[in-house]
């Protein structure tokens, strides 16, 4: 059940600081975090950032409208390459979402209390990333208005989806994932909503946060149930971290196209997802912690830890690339061999080598502690990794399709302005949601951070600690 809420004793070789700044106490934590939402004036920086992101959202809406009016022909997809940006972006966004669930669920189960400071933010990022991701499969369809046919609903034609298709597995995997993430995120939000309600300075704030708090009073019973629910949801979400991207990788692995048809995809996709997810958390967290003066809450320790996760998963991804290359040679299969050779030397070779640079070479710098603790360099590395992971999906989707079995049908794929408009539009939507989130909800879980303060508690009557395995 509840986990030992004490900071872990750190070995000496990680002298990157504590999990929370020594100057923080119970009052400062609450005031600082609730204050951002309740008392801080909407700054010009926020307005400008939000305005830019909102323009992106509008561009997305416009592009989607045009897409539904004209058809998927406005994109660069064609007959050998029937999947393009939509699928690349879908996989990329889903991958980004993974960090949130990993941080909130797996690290919770593993007693990694440093997660507390980044958990809410990462989880919100997950939700928004999944929202962006979820748009793509629908936009991608030739007849998007019939998307509900992928759901197993009773109908007069007695038709079911075709359950052997990985696309149908996607529907279940992604919708489950989105639901669990949303519930988990919201459950974690309840005590904080109550804090906001209690500290609210306006009537409307009280009403809004009061509704969100669902009558939370902070009683021991509430806390006890809260802990239980969190743990259960963490338990539910944990397999999803693995399953969602595994299922997404099946979209490719189940197909017979060289470059897709490979057993290594599930683990390699999951690692890649976590990799890109942590990169995205870093990309967002480094500036946010600066602008909102959260250095004492999101400390260098967090940054360092996230960089390490990124390095680890980056190495797994690198191993995946190696194995792909190895098997394309070792299998002596003409098509597999050609596929990898074409990736390395064909028309999309610059993308491939760029991907190798971004995803394999760049993270190697993270071995160096000074890189991990240099915010500017780390931020640049995290952006490079984000680009790299997008390129990875591009290379997998496009280069596998554009030259498959029959040379007569080989072709090229060139994204159009609409492809870019929709991709950048979802970035806009994502950032819009992030901006709104930062403005309306404490971006760091107050009650979880309070326990990290030396001697801190989050509830007046701490529940009895119990071992995890009894659950």
């Amino acid at each position, binding site marked *: 059940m509840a986990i030992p809420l004490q900071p872990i004793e750190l070995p000496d070789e990680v002298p990157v600081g504590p999990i929370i700044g020594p100057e923080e106490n119970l009052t400062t934590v609450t005031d600082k975090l609730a204050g951002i939402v309740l008392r801080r004036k909407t700054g010009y920086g926020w307005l400008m950032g939000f305005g830019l992101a909102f323009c992106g959202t509008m561009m997305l809406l416009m592009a989607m409208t045009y897409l539904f009016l*004209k*058809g*998927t*022909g406005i994109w*660069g*997809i*064609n*007959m*050998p*390459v*029937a*999947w393009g940006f939509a699928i690349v972006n879908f996989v990329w966004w889903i991958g980004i979402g993974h960090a949130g669930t990993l941080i909130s669920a797996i690290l919770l189960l593993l007693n990694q209390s440093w997660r507390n400071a980044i958990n809410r933010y990462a989880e919100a990022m997950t939700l928004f990333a999944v929202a962006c991701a979820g748009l793509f*499969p629908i936009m*991608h*369809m*030739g*007849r*998007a208005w*019939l*998307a509900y*046919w*992928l759901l197993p609903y009773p109908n007069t034609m007695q*038709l*079911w*989806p*075709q359950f*052997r*298709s*990985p*696309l*149908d597995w996607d*529907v279940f995997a992604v919708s489950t994932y989105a639901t669990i993430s949303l519930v988990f995120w919201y459950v974690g939000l309840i005590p904080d909503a109550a804090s906001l309600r209690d500290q609210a300075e306006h009537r409307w704030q009280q009403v809004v946060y009061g509704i969100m708090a669902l009558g939370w009073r902070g009683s021991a019973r509430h806390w006890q149930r809260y802990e239980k629910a969190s743990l259960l949801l963490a338990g539910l979400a944990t397999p999803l971290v693995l399953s969602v991207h595994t299922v997404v990788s099946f*979209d490719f692995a*189940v*197909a*017979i*196209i060289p470059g897709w048809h490979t057993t290594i995809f599930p683990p390699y996709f999951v690692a890649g997802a976590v990799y890109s997810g942590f990169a995205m958390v870093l990309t967002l967290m480094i500036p946010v912690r600066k602008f909102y003066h959260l250095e004492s809450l999101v400390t260098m320790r967090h940054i360092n830890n996230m960089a390490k996760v990124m390095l680890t998963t980056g190495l797994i991804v690198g191993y995946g690339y190696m194995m792909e290359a190895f098997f394309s040679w070792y299998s002596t299969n*003409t098509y597999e061999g*050609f596929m990898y050779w074409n990736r390395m030397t064909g028309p999309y070779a610059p993308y491939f080598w760029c991907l190798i640079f971004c995803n394999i070479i760049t993270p190697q710098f993270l071995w160096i502690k000074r890189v991990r603790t240099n915010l500017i360099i780390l931020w640049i590395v995290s952006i490079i990794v984000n680009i790299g992971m997008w390129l990875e999906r591009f290379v997998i989707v496009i280069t596998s*399709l554009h*030259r*498959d*079995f*029959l*040379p*007569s*049908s*080989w*072709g*090229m794929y060139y994204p159009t302005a609409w492809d870019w408009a929709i991709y950048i539009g979802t970035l806009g939507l994502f950032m819009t949601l992030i901006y709104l989130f930062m403005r309306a909800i404490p971006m760091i879980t107050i009650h979880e951070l309070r326990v990290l303060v030396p001697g801190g508690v989050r509830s007046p009557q701490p529940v009895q600690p119990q071992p995890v395995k009894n659950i």
Partner: protein
Amino acid sequence: MPSENENLDLASAQGKLDKAKGPNYWRSLDELAASKGFEDLLNREFPRQASEWDGGDEGRRNFLKLMGASLALGGLSACTRQPTEHIFPYVNAPESVIPGKPLYFATAFTMSGVSTGVLMESHMGRPTKVEGNPLHPASLGGTDVMTQASVLGLYDPDRSQTLNFLGEVRSYASFLTVVRDVLSGPSTKGGNGVRILTETIGSPSFGAQMKAILAANPQARWYQYEPLGAQNARMGSKLAFGQFVNTYYKFDSADLVVTVDSDFLCMGPASARYAHDFSAKRRVRGDQTSMNRMYSIESTPTPTGAKADHRFRMKPSEVAGFVRALAGSVGVGGSPGSAPSGIPGNGFSAMVKDLQAHRGSSIVIAGDEQSPEVHALVHAINGALGNVGKTVVYTDPIDVNPVDQTADIKALAAELDAGKVEVLLIVGGNPVYNAPAELAFAEKLPKARLRARLGLYDDETSALCQWHVPAAHPLESWGDGRAYDGTVTIMQPLIAPLYAGKSPLEFIAILTEDPEQTTYEAVRTYWMGQHKGADFENWWRKSVHDGIVADTALPAKTATAGAIPPAAVGASGSGLELSFRPDPYIYDGQFANNGWLQELPRPLTRLTWDNAVMISPATAKRLDVDTEDQVELKYGGRAVTGAVWIMPGQPDDSIAVNLGFGRTHAGRAGNGAGFDAYQLRTSNAQVYAAGVELRKLGKKYTLATTQHQSTTAKREVARVGTLAEYQKNPDFAREMGEEVPGKGETIYPETFKYEGYAWGMSIDLGACTGCNACVVACQSENNIPIVGKDQVNRERIMHWLRIDRYYDSDGQDNQKAAENPRTVFEPVACVHCEDAPCELVCPVAATVHDQDGLNNMIYNRCVGTRYCSNNCPYKVRRFNFYLYSDWNTESVKLQKNPDVTVRSRGVMEKCTYCVQRINYAKITAEKEDRKVRDGEIVTACEAACPAQAITFGDLNDPGSRVNKEKKEGLTYALLGELNTRPRTTHMAALRNPNPEIGEAS
């Protein structure tokens, strides 16, 4: 109460009854009914008006006046009432049209004056699809590309729809009045200044009409001009024999063929028959263990050259020298020639030896684009080899009036220039666009006083004529024509003219005493004169019904080539040579507005919507140009701009361009497609122009090709072997690729047993000539939309069936392969895998198997994820990225096959094995309580293929043709190693190279 004899009419009877009530009513009714007056009323024919009759003299007169007026009025409204013209359905003789059941009518498609018999499929009065006429000698069931596509021309929304005078709509009557006035005037007495320009005419009735007109107007002149066609062959025969002679070939008796720049397999009115006969001699099956051999000498690569066992490339200026050398070597015209420079190694001597060994069973054939001199030499060679009468047949000309057409157009231009032309009637053609460039026909044409043009389109020529008369499409009017061997077809209309078009016969009738005679009358009257006797009606019915007039093939005549013509002082010299070629699909430009043909990938370049400046790789390197570079071609002071296409197999230092493009008044599809090479083509450089300058413009021009990869990338996807290899190991093709997993080697249980029918197909690469007739057939059968150049460029062409072209570099060094590659064509459509990868991945089960093993696509269920296409290793699925089908143009709707769904946006589609035909046959068979017979279902591609490369049938029927084909060792499953178990298998092509010549040639 009425008296017995009182006269009654309805009004008075009613008046009488009105007053009565109750029992009185019934009583008076009875009385009334019993009265004689009432009886009269009932029996009178016109109860109301007839009363007038008895109203004295006045009434009767009024009545007659009224009747007269109504008759006159009625007559006015019905004065266009047509006499009955019977047409005769081909296969069925229905008592009435049954909705949903198509009828077939025999007619013919005419090009350059030569007809090919076809059967038109007609749905409820709409012709929708062209099929070959199995009875017709030029078809034998197959069709060529242009014939297949001709039905779209009928429904072309850009066809001219009104009769125009200087752009204003007029009636035909006003046209007749004006022209007749001029014709009856003093200036045109006896036909003075009356000139008629037509294309090559093979129609006997039109010829008879023209002869009658010329006899009645001795001063009138008839000119013929066509930019391509058989002009050179015609002049060559005159050169060789001193008279015009028609030549045709019997490829079914030829073991050896030498082509001199001839694309006889794909071009020309007899190409379907030639492809049929040629491939029959090439098919090694069962008892037939040998095959023919072909040498091709080409100045531009053609599909025929691609089929050749030895292909030699030669600059256009070298061809005549080669033929002269060949003539010398077979013993005509002096000393044996030395090996021409274009043929490496011992190729020439081996070829000559081969020809000597095949006296009487060989053919040397020159292409229509070759000079008369070459044709004359070839006649002499065939004569010397004893082929005449055996494989080469001479007859009287097919044209009713063979002439030197270049001389004709020059003479007309001169007369125009001199102001001697009072009335110029232009029937078809398009001289303003395609007359020799130096004539500047467009400038001279307006010098004729009255210019009237009959044309399907308001095109370049019509724009310069005062009168434009819309022509009836050949499917809208009666007519007649002769096939390549002289066999006559009487063409019957499939539909009334959509836009009140006139046939050529109706149009020139303006010069006769009976300007309003119908085409039906004219044709029928002509043939009445030809077939005298009481049985004419039966004879007529049978001839129209069969699509051939029995025993009208022209008899073979003996003609001996005279002395070898002296070497013409040909255009030679330094610099680049430019040869002008007909486009394989839009021909001389007359089909430029046919979207099917524009978008059909050219056999070798796979180009759509454009022509190109085709240059050999080495020359391109020398000139520092690359594909899609814009260049300016300059010849004789005139220049055109086109884009370069690097063409393997093109001789060095020579350029080839296809004619027919660069139209300005063609319509929405033809305008702006490609560039107009006629602007460089002068009357003395019709075949090729020497000394052409090429200047790089430094700009790029996008060319839309459908195949970007030319080689097989060392994959055994299109298998080719030699006859020797086959004789050594008949299963060589099967053993070429990777091992194919056995049946049952799959993790999925074998749930499907296919115990009823199991449809399958076999495609013989050896027979396929790459002509693409099957692709057009598929397009018209299955309502496949055209997508336009931009979409083709985005790789979204919709053809369900494509003919892949691979340059086979196997066994050749790369340099040689690039310069003169061997080519193989491979038609690929959905192969209907038994373990279909597409079915597994569709999330909504929109593509599933049926009990016969068809891989069906359910359009209504498709949501458009395109996963099926990704997972299809053959990449034969096509997606409606936009709303490609034309749902708006009324005339095009008529062409649609009602048995096939017109697809909407966002759904996937692909080859169905013509499921509508399968189901039609299955229903018929079920009604008759029997199994579907072998050959009863013929897919559109199979039906169209002149070379019979495609066989379809039931795999569960041990005797079916498709099973026989599949048992051959040549059969292999394309990508069979993926365990897809395709129902369509391919058969490797065999070549028969001369062992004396190195395999590399």
